[in-house]
């Protein structure tokens, strides 16, 4: 049961990655140029139809999937790095530093990403996927930081840490070589969760007009669909594919996270 879940989730994610990477060689159509009539439904020549400007939807979907996955990976990397640093410092040092860092984490946690992006949208009218990924990463760390802090606080009272301290190790060395390696399984699981959250956030923020404005991502496709009033005009091929891929990827990422959690955590496995 546990392994089938893991394999299923990993297979779907791998398939989406390959769809984006191999797709552009198998289906070498430029997503930005007009290749046919406007708003052609799926059929011969265009497997997923064309959009308002006669551009191929499948070609957009192939590029968009890669862009969205990349945004997810970049955002999750940044968020995990910030979370490890803040969580470790907060948990190991304690005291006033801990309290102020955790207060800051709570503020970021309650503050919606859309507010940060509203401000950025005013000053940066052209936003690449990278900019949006970095901004999402900067707002997605607090949950993980709090969890790491809690784990550090319990780990630092263990015997192997006392032994290291007796051996004359500095605090930094203990954190980096004793404590953080003990949490890598947890960090990796969280990385997967943050990645799925970041991909969903990108699409939502882009759809409302504060996200990506350059290139094609799944969010940009949904934005275009919204702009051309696709739902009301019954142009299902404009909004079903990007949302479908997004749902598939985010659901498999979360399935992967639960499977990894059970694999790394023997206590959950027993249940």
């Amino acid at each position, binding site marked *: 049961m546990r392994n089938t879940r893991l394999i299923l989730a990993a297979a779907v994610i791998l398939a989406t990655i390959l769809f984006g990477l191999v797709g552009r060689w198998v289906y070498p159509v430029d997503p930005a140029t007009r290749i046919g009539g406007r708003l052609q439904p799926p059929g011969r020549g265009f497997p997923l139809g064309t959009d308002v400007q006669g551009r191929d939807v499948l070609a957009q979907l192939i590029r968009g999937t890669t862009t969205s996955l990349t945004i997810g990976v970049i955002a999750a990397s940044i968020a995990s790095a910030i979370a490890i640093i803040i969580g470790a410092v907060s948990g190991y040092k304690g005291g006033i530093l801990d309290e102020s860092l955790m207060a800051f984490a709570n503020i970021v946690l309650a503050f919606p990403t859309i507010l940060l992006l509203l401000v950025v949208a005013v000053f940066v009218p052209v936003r690449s996927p990278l900019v949006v990924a970095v901004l999402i990463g900067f707002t997605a760390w607090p949950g993980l930081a709090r969890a790491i802090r809690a784990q550090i606080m319990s780990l630092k009272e263990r015997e192997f840490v006392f032994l290291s301290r007796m051996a004359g190790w500095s605090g930094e060395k203990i954190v980096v070589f004793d404590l953080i390696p003990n949490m890598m399984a947890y960090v990796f699981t969280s990385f997967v969760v943050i990645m799925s959250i970041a991909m969903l956030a990108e699409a939502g923020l882009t759809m409302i*007009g504060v996200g990506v404005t350059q290139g094609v991502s799944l969010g940009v496709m949904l934005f275009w669909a919204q702009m051309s009033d696709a739902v*009301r005009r019954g142009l299902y091929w404009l909004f079903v594919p990007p949302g479908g891929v997004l749902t598939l990827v985010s659901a498999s990422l*979360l399935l992967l996270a639960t499977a990894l959690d059970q694999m790394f955590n023997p206590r959950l496995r027993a249940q």
Partner: protein
Amino acid sequence: MGLPLWDQFKKFIGQLLCGDLGTSISMYPRKTLEIISLYLPWTIGLLLPAILVSWALGNYLGALLAWRRGTILDKLLTPLLLFISRIPFYWFAMLMLFGFAVKLRFFPIGGTYSWGLTPNLSWHFVIDYLKHYVLPFCTWVIICLGGWAIGMRSMMIYELNSDYIIFADVLGIPQRKLLRYAFRSACLPQITELGLNFGFMLSGSLLLELVFNYRGMGYITFQALAALDYPLIQGIFLMLAATVIFVNLFIDIVYGLIDPRIKAQ
């Protein structure tokens, strides 16, 4: 304009304290505050009942699933709720609109009320408004339901396995009463979650309005961004930030009232 940055900022704060958020560029010559106060009630009217209903319903459902865990009901409903909470909500809204309004024609295809009507309290208008209201409301409730139910289910299972419930069970206290004790304890973290998720829900409702073409804050946010209407964007930013802060403050106060441990301190 033309003043040093610091003086501009002082002037801005002064005007802000007088309730003056400047004049909109795209909807000139209307004041930013006037535009926001025109659209905000519609957003509150949709968001607040939807949040409360989904929270209450989700908690009830979660408690039920925890109580009946391991039964067919739990085994079918829990994965379904998990899956629904994983669908991107804006896409789910698009599918709902496409299915129920465009294809099945059960509901109007978006908008707040029919063209040509002016908001008033006549039956005609209220019924027309409710027809437009049902689909975004139900969409929002379904989307949020899963998250609350899953959270409540695990909290309830934790509470039902805790020592005080087992002890009360040994004492022979009726099952219904046990359930109520556990439910009350399990509600506390759900209230905290409500505060933490409020910002997310607020930005989510902006997107939901966009999909349903509902004329609230989401609509003017989109318009302001498309027209780069700085004073209006700034006004919306301040309004959203203030709402998130006040809701969290309010929940902190409520928390003090309902949790005896905090009240005692």
